[in-house]
């Protein structure tokens, strides 16, 4: 559930980023290796943001699930 929500948010962010901040084309001798390097630099910011966001999301999820399970446990004990 957590993974699905995360992927959905990530997917929307990515589409927005890639298509709004488009990189101009170059026309010369084509080397796919260069394209892969440039591509990594373009998406690098998002990938890094993804790592930070994923870590933040885990903490939030952990906090919420821990609180819920504590509430349930205390209700059961009453």
């Amino acid at each position: 559930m957590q993974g699905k929500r995360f992927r959905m948010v990530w997917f929307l962010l990515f589409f927005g980023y890639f298509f709004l901040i488009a990189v101009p084309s170059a026309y010369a001798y084509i080397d796919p290796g260069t394209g892969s390097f440039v591509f990594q630099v373009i998406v690098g910011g998002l990938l890094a943001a993804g790592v930070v966001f994923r870590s933040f999301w885990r903490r939030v999820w952990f906090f919420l699930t821990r609180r819920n399970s504590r509430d349930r446990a205390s209700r059961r004990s009453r």
Partner: protein
Amino acid sequence: MSGRARRMSANGSGGEDLFGAGSFRDPRGFVFQREGRLLRQVNAAHREDYDHLMGSGLYEALVEAGLLIPHREVDIAIAATPEAYRVLEPERVAFISYPYEWSFGMFRDAALATLRIQELALSFGMSLRDASAYNVQFQRGRPVLIDTLSFERLREGRPWVAYRQFCQHFLGPLALMSHRDVRLGQLLRVHIDGVPLDLVASLLPGRTWLRPGLMLHIHLHARSQRQHAAGATPRGRFGLRAFVGLVQSLRSAVDGLRWDPGRSAWVGYYQEAESYTAAALEHKQELVARFVEEAAPDQVWDLGGNVGAFSRIASDRGIFTVCFDVDPGCVEANYRRVAEAGEKNLLPLVLDLTNPSSRIGWESRERMSLADRGPADLVLTLALVHHLAIGNNVPLPRLGAYLAELGRALVVEFVPKSDPKVRDLLVVREDIFGDYTAEGFERAFGARFEILRREPVRESERVLYLMRRTVG
């Protein structure tokens, strides 16, 4: 007739020495053979990276996790050239296999192992500079990296130099196998440096644009390759977080790929036992076991081995066995059983014996043919001869000659024309196979082999032979 004494090594070639022929591209070191030992030279150019690998704890961590082939350093006097900094003797891989011979699950596990290695390397300040599928081999049932020189110290701020290679060697072919057709793994036989991403993108169904990992690493990546030329110098930093994010994203993309063999035509072949009564099947198993023990091989190749029922007669006795089958579903089912049970002596591989793996790559020597990786001590060809001789019109003398190239000894089952399975094959074929008789079979194979045992299988008209090669 023990093969032990005659066997050169676990993967000793009977012909031209091609081991190491695929490592010529790397200026930092190469593989060579000396006195029957397989060695890897580390050149002085790779000194600092090699020392970091060994000194940082990464080597121990990888070997402990079963992800890297262990090695020992040997006397440098044995080096092949003066540029040597170290000479390593890695543990020998029992059988060299190639990605176009792996089932989907094997391929996927090899991809995940590569990413796990990269994650571990990052945590030790190193990175893989190659992500070639050919650097992964299956040893004791698990994928393991065999190229100790693949590691370089992390150059922070630089993108992953092996990203494109990973996508072309692993993610692209796996995506095609999962989302289009599992047989597309065979594209790697044509594209030795991985399937070009524009080709992968064009073959994948449109719905894969909705899979974030495939959209990013295949579709948009391929588009970026088209858009950016050599003149476009990559600017901007690619920090460690981005690096970690890239590997996590690739892992998530590979993790999401699935392929279920379902009910292939061959997976239930022996379970359904249409071809045998229970007594016949049991007797055949007894005969194979007896012949295997008599041959006492170190390595067995089971050709047309289905899901490995007869391969396990050898592998359960501690004999390293390669089980080949043409059906990717059978090989996948076999691999899943190997992985689940932790079987160490069985390697399932996809092979079409009518078009076996040939030499490919630079000078046609980079990747070995099937025969280059033999001969095996013992070849099993059970319920196979009729498929090749009648189903594929291979004359019996030529079949015997090829099998004599592949193995020093042979356990072979002859299925006569009166058998229901052969009658099925002849339903839509004109019977032009006048020589396909027990006498014709023995005459053809007798030109290459000495017949040591001839045993009819109980409650059937089939005959099982044990033969020893007399020529070659």
